[in-house]
């Protein structure tokens, strides 16, 4: 039997970590763009757009991410399309992040006082101009900390994509465990790597929250 040194284990896990990072970033950016679109649909004064956005958010927040991954991976096969695991993983995580980000950001938009909209309206600004010049810049400041905090959820969410065969950190861990029969060492390392990725993000989120709150109060 071939022997694995601890370095072999760590090296292979770190190589797989690249895919965890890449998938997290791609899903976060894709989810951010889609989430912004849904946010706009959610807040514009159109009943149909609002209902569509709400339905989207309810569906993706009300079902497990795991089911969404399965569906993204297996549903296209019903129509004879073979979707690579990384495409399915990216699509499902993007759609899932978008729902949560849209909802986080909606809270930030609603935290901007109504008087700000009214002041803009009374100056003759259109709805879009009120949103762009007055409300979104203020909501953005409120949104930074919770948005960065949500990125931790995305990173941890990528672990689920191992189930459809995408080789990221978790999947690499189980492959290596099957070869080394040292689950405690391997999964211990996996956990440490996840922690090393997530802790700086949540620390950064808290730091930004404190900093932006102070800046906000100084105004």
């Amino acid at each position: 039997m071939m022997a694995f040194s601890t370095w072999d284990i760590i090296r292979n896990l770190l190589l797989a970590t690249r895919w965890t990072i890449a998938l997290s970033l791609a899903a976060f950016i894709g989810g951010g763009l889609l989430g912004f679109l849904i946010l706009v649909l959610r807040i514009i004064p159109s009943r149909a757009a609002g209902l569509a956005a709400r339905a989207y958010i309810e569906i993706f927040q009300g079902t497990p991410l795991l089911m969404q991954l399965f569906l993204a991976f297996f549903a296209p096969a019903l129509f004879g399309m073979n979707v690579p695991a990384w495409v399915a993983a990216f699509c499902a995580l993007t759609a899932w992040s978008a729902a949560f980000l849209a909802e986080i950001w909606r809270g930030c938009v609603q935290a901007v006082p109504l008087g700000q909209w009214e002041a803009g309206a009374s100056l003759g600004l259109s709805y879009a101009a009120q949103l762009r010049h007055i409300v979104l810049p203020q909501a953005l400041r409120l949104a930074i900390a919770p948005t960065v905090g949500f990125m931790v959820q995305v990173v941890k969410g990528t672990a689920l994509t191992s189930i459809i065969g995408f080789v990221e950190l978790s999947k690499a861990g189980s492959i290596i465990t099957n070869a080394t029969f040292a689950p405690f060492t391997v999964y211990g390392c996996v956990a440490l790597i996840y922690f090393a990725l997530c802790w700086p993000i949540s620390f950064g989120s808290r730091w930004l929250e404190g900093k932006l709150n102070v800046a906000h109060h100084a105004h």
Partner: protein
Amino acid sequence: MSLITLTDLHKSYGPHEVLKGISLTIEAGEVIALIGKSGSGKSTLLRCINGLEPFQRGGIDITGLPVTTNPAELRALRQRVGMIFQQFNLFPHMTVGRNVMLAPMVVKKQSKAHAEATARQMLDRVGLAGRFDSYPGQMSGGQQQRVAIARALAMEPLALLCDEITSALDPELVNEVLAVMRDLARQGMTLVMVTHEMRFAREVCHRLVFMHQGRIHEVGPPAEIFTAPKTTELRQFIGLEPV
């Protein structure tokens, strides 16, 4: 032709009728105070004139333009009628100068240089010439309210609607705002204000409109309203008769 004409205006929040048929004409250059107890519909009336509140029946006409719910028509109308709020509602993320420049640049498509020149002129007019680069949060309430006035003036409105603009201010800051309003009145600006500053109303306004339970009870020049009130409600309101 009158500047603002209200015809049999009705407004309800659900089953609760707030305005029960308001008719009033306001001429250009007039300074009018809406007075009355809270809940009498003064602020609602003012917000209807600017299209911030929809109404159910009757009409509002401003220099021939009707107040509707059509967004484009409302924007055109709001360029003629500025509004100043009790809570100032300055944009906290922008400097004072930017606050004043925003609408002229975005709505009237003025160049930055033009808008800046106008903004400096308007800030000078309200006595805040040196504060162009300050943020609203660095100013007192009275100064913030004067910025709000400058911001409304920069759009060159035909009339200003003022919704209890001194009610959120500490007593020592009220006068600096009223002094600006006095200047505007002297310069011929049409002002429609909801106010509890009776002395100011008496000294500066051409007509007072006393509202009670969603109706106009009495209209007249201050001397008449204060010295010869006709209805019991008004006599009670100005303290000539116990409630």
